[in-house]
């Protein structure tokens, strides 16, 4: 045993050094990926617009300028026209970024934080724990999402939750939406666990947790990250779908989902009204997608080796 440890030690030092440069490498590779980089810039500008909405937007998003009228097309004063209650569409679009981006991003974060530990735990633990956790996912998944969302919003409506209906929606969507990612994490880790390099590491005497953290998890994360970046638009859609059903963010708050729903009602008379927020959602979605791709490519060292010097 002692002999094995002595032999193992110099080789142990290497993984640590590689690890630091793995993430550093990843960052560099990511930044060199043109699409991902552009997407990052786009998202940053959207975020800036969201934060400084008050300064950027030409009008108060809730002001009803009925001298101009409702559902009018674009004019000098209202570049994108007015909506069904005479409010400026452009201003609402800019302010809407705030809510929609928050819903998207925070839901994805919440889902990640819930799903990864659960999935990993299921993959690494005893069969009993695995079984229990998977039944928990079955239970959650079988759950009627709509009922859960309605209940949560009703129960929490009377308490002063910071962020109001937006927080409630984030909570509700993430609580019903973590399951797919968890199962994906588990499946990935299970499959990685059978790989030769893992068996080799085990043979070298590396502890299970070290294997998990340094080998299994990073190598499982590729498809997981791609999937999590999909959660952002899914959450923004979920918000749009909830608005379609009528239980979205409380009015008169502007959100892209709410604007898509309102525009849908007027699609025959003012079709552009549905296009603007839909395009906003599409751009955000694409941005997150390319970032996700970039991350995946960046984290998998073998991709870079396969295409030396070429990225994106």
């Amino acid at each position, binding site marked *: 045993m002692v002999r094995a440890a002595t032999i193992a030690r110099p080789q142990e030092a290497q993984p640590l050094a590689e690890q630091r440069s793995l993430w550093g490498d990843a960052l560099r590779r990511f930044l060199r990926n043109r699409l991902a980089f552009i997407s990052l810039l786009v998202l940053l500008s959207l975020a800036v617009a969201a934060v400084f909405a008050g300064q950027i937007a030409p009008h108060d998003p809730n002001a009803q300028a009925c001298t101009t009228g409702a559902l009018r097309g674009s004019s000098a004063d209202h570049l994108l026209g007015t909506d069904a209650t005479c409010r400026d569409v452009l201003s609402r679009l800019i302010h809407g970024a705030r809510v929609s981006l928050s819903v998207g991003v925070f839901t994805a974060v919440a889902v990640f934080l819930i799903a990864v530990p659960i999935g990993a735990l299921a993959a690494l633990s005893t069969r009993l724990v695995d079984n229990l956790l998977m039944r928990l996912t079955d239970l959650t998944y*079988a759950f*009627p999402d709509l009922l859960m969302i309605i209940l949560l919003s009703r129960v929490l409506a009377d308490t002063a939750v910071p962020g109001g209906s937006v927080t409630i929606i984030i909570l509700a969507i993430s609580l019903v939406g973590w399951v*797919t990612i968890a199962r994906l994490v588990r499946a990935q880790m299970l499959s990685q666990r059978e790989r030769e390099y893992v068996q080799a590491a085990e043979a070298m005497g590396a502890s299970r947790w070290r294997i998990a953290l340094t080998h299994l998890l990073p190598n499982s994360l590729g498809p997981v990250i*791609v999937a999590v970046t999909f959660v952002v638009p899914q959450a923004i859609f979920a918000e749009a779908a909830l608005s379609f059903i009528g239980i979205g963010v409380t009015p008169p708050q502007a959100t892209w989902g709410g604007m898509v729903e309102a525009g849908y009602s007027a699609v025959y008379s003012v079709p552009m009204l549905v296009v603007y927020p839909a395009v906003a959602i599409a751009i955000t979605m694409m941005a997150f997608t390319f970032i996700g791709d970039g991350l995946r490519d960046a984290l998998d060292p073998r991709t870079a080796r396969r295409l030396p010097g070429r990225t*994106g």
Partner: protein
Amino acid sequence: MTGYVLRRLLWLAPVLFFVTLITFVLMHLVPGGPWDTKDRPISPQLREQLESKYGLDEPVWQQFLTFSWNALHGDLGVSFQYQDRSVTEIIREGVEVSAVLGLMALAFALMVGVTLGVVAAVKQNSPIDYASVFLSTFAASTPSFVLGILLIVVFAVQLGWLPVFGWEKAWWLFPNWKQAILPTVTLGALPAAYVARITRASVLEVLQQDYVRTARAKGLHERLVLGRHVLKNAVIPILTVSGPIAASLVTGSFIVETVFAIPGLGKQFVASVFQRDYGMIMGTTIFYAAVIAMANLVVDMMYVVVNPRIRY
């Protein structure tokens, strides 16, 4: 493996039980009851009548036991909204429609998604890759009701090739094929995009594997490399997500059913939640839970077939 399947089936019982219990509790916590959907104030007398007729005047725990006992005997109760029609009958009618629609959408999603994903991965960074990424991103970034109305306007109103709405059984449970096209595409677009991306990511990852390099180095024809090695291993994450996708498609999509006026179970369930039709809510929830649990089980079984190294 048989042991595993049996054990999973046994686990079904507690899962269904907890789903029922939680749903029951949630349902009674949400404000508003089934008699509050009338437009006239409901006199205490009338409320009493109705409650005694349906056994809602008993304490909640007793109602739950009664319901569970009946459910075990196959009796899911009656709908309050639809004048005592049996829940089982309403579900059956809805499932005949939703299941067919869901399965068609799943087939569409898998065929289109896997094809796009594989092609994109194999021809990574080519124009085809970019085009398919853009296409799938677009499909995934348009809320289904927007996509639906877009398809209706183009194909039904302007071109007149397809009907706008409806679902009539033409052959066994399958509808008139013209009526089926638009709803299937609308419902299947988002899953198709999702599947395409997962496929692409997964295939790319597998293509980096050493055994693929080995196979190529051996001089194996590219097609054989793809077919024999790559696809079999890339399929895992696709399987992971197709389970939940199938379940959610089969249990109905409220939005597509509303937009295309299809009398399916999804629309029915949402309506019953809003009408607080306790009978329908409970019955449908149990049905959904069972379907989803079965779908997950089938997916897990398929893992073993595809990757014999995964041990249970």
